């Protein structure tokens, strides 16, 4: 083999494992999924029946399927609370505070925990006469106790609350990191100019962490559509808590309706891509520089 030829194929040799995996486990599945979504298939049969847009029509018209978008709404709303709480504590801990590292560690720690373990911890907390009810009675709010996971009106709120508990630590650490990367002289200059804490927050901190806040919203939206472990472990999707992924899992792997489940997944994928595209338009990502 000549030297020129060798140089031509060499980089591809280094890329081959990564590209092979990328194509086999991301692009081929996405392509297949598109194909399945126009067919009726149980995953076993040798033949698939083409059904046109029937699966998509069903996703948007059958309540069992479009309802899952409403359930995502609870998690999406909760993610605003999550971002607000995280931002508050990130600002607080960027000041001179005693036991800073201890508080930082405690607030962040839930994010590292195993999802199934978190599910059990909160299943225990929400039990009738469990921890939450006991604490409420202590506080004289005994009449506020209810079936936190059994009552369809409130189950999604309990689950979304669990999700806030689990993920606030991530947003918090990202915000804190961004705030701490703002040079200290800027605050000093602002203080000399007589700017108070609120002004410092509004005019120094917020612009400094805009990119990370916008990233957090994207993670929040795709995260709220991809919720799986918490409802699956805690309620199994009962009492109106079936999320998109729980429903897609059941459709595909329990009821063997691969076509219908694929249509759901395609819709979800399009939503996520659309949101990401919108975000890139609104907040251009200056820091991406490859090659």
């Amino acid at each position, binding site marked *: 083999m000549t030297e020129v030829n060798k140089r031509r194929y060499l*980089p591809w040799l280094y890329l081959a494992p990564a590209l092979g995996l990328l194509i086999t486990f991301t692009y081929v599945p996405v392509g297949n999924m598109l194909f399945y979504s126009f067919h009726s298939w149980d995953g076993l049969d040798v033949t698939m029946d083409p059904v046109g847009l029937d699966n998509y029509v069903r996703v948007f018209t059958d309540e069992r399927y479009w309802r899952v978008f409403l359930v995502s709404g609870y998690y999406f709303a909760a993610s605003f609370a999550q971002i607000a709480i995280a931002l508050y504590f990130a600002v607080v801990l960027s000041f001179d505070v005693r036991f800073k590292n201890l508080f930082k560690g405690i607030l962040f720690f839930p994010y590292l925990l195993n999802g199934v373990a978190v599910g059990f911890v909160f299943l225990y907390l929400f039990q009738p006469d469990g921890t939450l009810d006991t604490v409420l009675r202590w506080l004289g709010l005994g009449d506020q106790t209810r079936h936190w996971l059994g009552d369809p009106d409130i189950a999604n709120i309990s689950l979304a609350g669990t999700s806030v508990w689990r993920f606030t630590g991530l947003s918090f650490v990202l915000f804190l990191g961004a705030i701490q990367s703002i040079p200290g002289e800027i605050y000093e200059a602002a203080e000399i100019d007589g700017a108070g804490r609120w002004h410092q927050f509004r005019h120094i901190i917020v612009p400094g962490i805009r990119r990370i806040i916008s990233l957090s919203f994207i993670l929040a939206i795709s995260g709220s559509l991809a919720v799986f472990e918490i409802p699956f472990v805690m309620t199994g999707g009962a009492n109106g808590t079936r999320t998109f992924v729980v429903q897609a899992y059941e459709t595909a792997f329990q009821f063997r309706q691969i076509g219908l489940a694929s249509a759901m997944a395609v819709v979800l994928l399009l939503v996520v891509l659309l949101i990401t595209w919108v975000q890139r338009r609104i907040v251009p990502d200056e820091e991406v520089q490859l090659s």
Partner: protein
Amino acid sequence: MRRPAMYASLVLASLVVLVPLAVVFFAAFKTRAEYSTTGPLTPPRNWLHFDNFVTAWSEGRMLLGFGNTTVILAVSLTGTILVGTLAAYAVSRFDFPFKRLVLGSFLVAALVPGVTTQVATYQIVKSMGLVNTPASAIVLFLGTDIISIYIFIQFMQSIPPSLDQAAMIDGASRFTVYRRIILPLMKPAIATVAIIKGIAIYNEFYIPFLYLRSPDLSVISTALFRFKGPYGAQWETIAACTMIVILPTVVLFLLLQRFIYNGITAGATK
């Protein structure tokens, strides 16, 4: 803001984080009778009552779970690091046609949430005959990882190319440069990837739940999940098992705090 209010909010938040975990910790040390007669906030009478842990450990076959998790973790991490650094080396040190297309294909793939494609991925893994073998989880942990490649590319760009050029003038081959110069200098990036990827694999539930159905292939997430049915009412056993799963995370966090913060930040913002 007033200082006392600030500290009050910090203490309140810490309680919200710690109390749900503390009550499960309490329950893990209680006897059956004690559990049914005392409230959740009452500490156990005997802190040395380890029966629940013993039951959870043996009934849940937790040793098997930890063993399987460790094997999958070790192989997936090694693989991710090799595949990722090789790809990053090609991208940052070679010029070749379609380079932008290749980069773009990694970028777009990073936007596809893994859970959405499992419906179709399952059929592929099944056709390879990997369902119910540890290899299924391993290839998926390798194949779904784009963020690591990103971290590697970014880090490699900070290594001066003059280093490799000097070595090549001395007669070193491309692979020698990768093996002797690039890989050793990549240690910080490798540590970052090992941490974020390691935590993600240890905590992963969906992939093992879907692909490792056989009880002999339990990883810790699925082993813990199996307590849900038959132990529905035996909370003291479930609590003990939950604590067994959480404990390694606590230890690791206390030991590697700084690296974990840095790794998480790098992983989420790249």
